[in-house]
């Protein structure tokens, strides 16, 4: 077995086990941490595919930022597991149906007919000095610049909408404005008064 194959199976086994643990583990914080492990191993597998930019971005965005905030929220929530599990058996048929449908779709699309080695032979090895990042950037900002900008616009709108939905300005509350506090200058607070010394 080639060393690369060994690395692939090593990462893949950990990833699959971690992904299973995400949905089977009882503690939500553990589940989130297993999801982090899954992302990390997915990044490793992408590295094997020579997609280093995507792999590192996956780790940076999902592990470094998204999951941190996710954990932040999950840790603060008081989750009652028994309440969540109450309707398990009644929801199971619907859930299983959706799951099976998704599985069939994925098998049809990702099966050997389209993604087998005959249909999609391994790409030629990149020559030395090939920069994955540069190539991706070139494609994104030239060939696909409009779809790319459109996607970023949609994200921006979503972001503004999320902020606008949660923004709430209450009047008449004693709320600290750090900007105002930082902007304080001595002249605004202290007044030096010059006066003659008092003599008896």
């Amino acid at each position, binding site marked *: 077995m080639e060393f690369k194959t060994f690395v692939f199976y090593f990462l893949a086994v950990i990833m699959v086990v971690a992904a299973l643990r995400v949905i089977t583990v009882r503690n939500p914080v553990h589940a989130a941490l297993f999801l982090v492990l899954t992302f990390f191993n997915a990044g490793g597998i992408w590295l094997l595919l020579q997609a280093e930019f995507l792999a590192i*971005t996956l*780790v940076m965005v999902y*592990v*470094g930022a998204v999951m*941190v905030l996710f954990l*932040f929220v999950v840790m603060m929530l008081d989750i009652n597991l028994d309440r969540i599990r109450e309707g398990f058996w009644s929801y199971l048929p619907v859930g299983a149906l959706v799951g099976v449908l998704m599985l069939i779709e994925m098998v049809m699309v990702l099966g050997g007919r389209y993604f087998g080695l005959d249909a999609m032979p391994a790409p030629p090895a990149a020559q030395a000095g090939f920069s994955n*990042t540069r190539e991706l950037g070139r494609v994104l900002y030239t060939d696909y610049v409009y779809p790319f900008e459109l996607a970023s616009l949609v994200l921006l709108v979503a972001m503004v909408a999320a902020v606008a939905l949660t923004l709430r300005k209450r009047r008449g509350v004693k709320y600290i404005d*750090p900007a105002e506090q*930082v902007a304080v200058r001595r002249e605004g607070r202290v007044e030096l008064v010059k006066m003659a010394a008092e003599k008896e």
Partner: protein
Amino acid sequence: MQAMLQPVADLFGPSWPAVWTLIKIVAIVAPLMGAVAYLTLAERKVIGYMQVRIGPNRVGPMGLLQPIADGVKLLLKEIIVPSGSNKGLFILGPILAIAPALAAWSVVPFSEGLVLANVNAGLLLLLAITSMEVYGVIIAGWASNSKYPFLGSMRAAAQMVSYEVSMGFALICVLLISASLNLTDIVHSQGQGRFHEMGLSFLSWNWLPLLPMFVVYLISGIAETNRAPFDVVEGEAEVVAGHMVEYSGMTFALFFLAEYANMILVSILTSVLFLGGWLSPFGFLPDGFHWLALKTALILFVFLWARATFPRFRYDQIMRLGWKVFIPVTLIWVFVVAVWMMSPLSIWK
């Protein structure tokens, strides 16, 4: 060198690349740990002198053996795992704190060709690895199952994510003008230009055209490593010691090692990205690792200086600085640099 090592390489056969890499890793980590140990001494001495004290002076000549005494003490102390804690994660916390702090060193170039892994996307890899540092703190705080550690870890999560954004934008400026993610190339790109030809190389380094980014990066670096005045995560006056409250002995020492290793990492990165790495400041002096060491030491001194000088920020002020000051400034500066590069005034042709 290669010919000299050939007999040893033959001895190990096909496993030689792995062994050779391990040797290189030890050659990086061992001096790093030494530097961390003596950075703690330097910190106590520097702050001591700034506060007109003497600092540690009992163990060994001039207190020089103090870090070793500290290390032995921490090694011999008992590790107490609180009974209400989540035991597995409680042990995992410090490990996750130190692992990224060491892994990040794999792509740091020390001198011409002296780097463990000269990867193309080195800068990106560094960003990814350093963004994982926060997990150690969060997991430690949560697994301790105690109020203060939990508060500390919540603060850490919010603070580190916030400052990573401005740090990332500052780095985008750097890679815009050097057109590479490879750290060695970034250093090379600083060794050219008008000032370099005049022999005043230090004026052609990135810090001058990117001065606001340099400042933002340095301050974000202090915040990212949770050092004073941004150490609300530890905040001994408010949350006692944050995520480290329940830790003792070696588990505590790992957090300590990670913090100082990160400090040195941020300093060496600032030197590589903005201060020309191993390039000498004047044309008539030869380049070399000693310049990088000197620049790193200077920045580390700034870290200690800041700690001795400024009172701790309040938490909401930290958030304001990160989101309302640094991110707009860096965003605008990315734009300015991009336009500058495309204009006829560009100095990076």
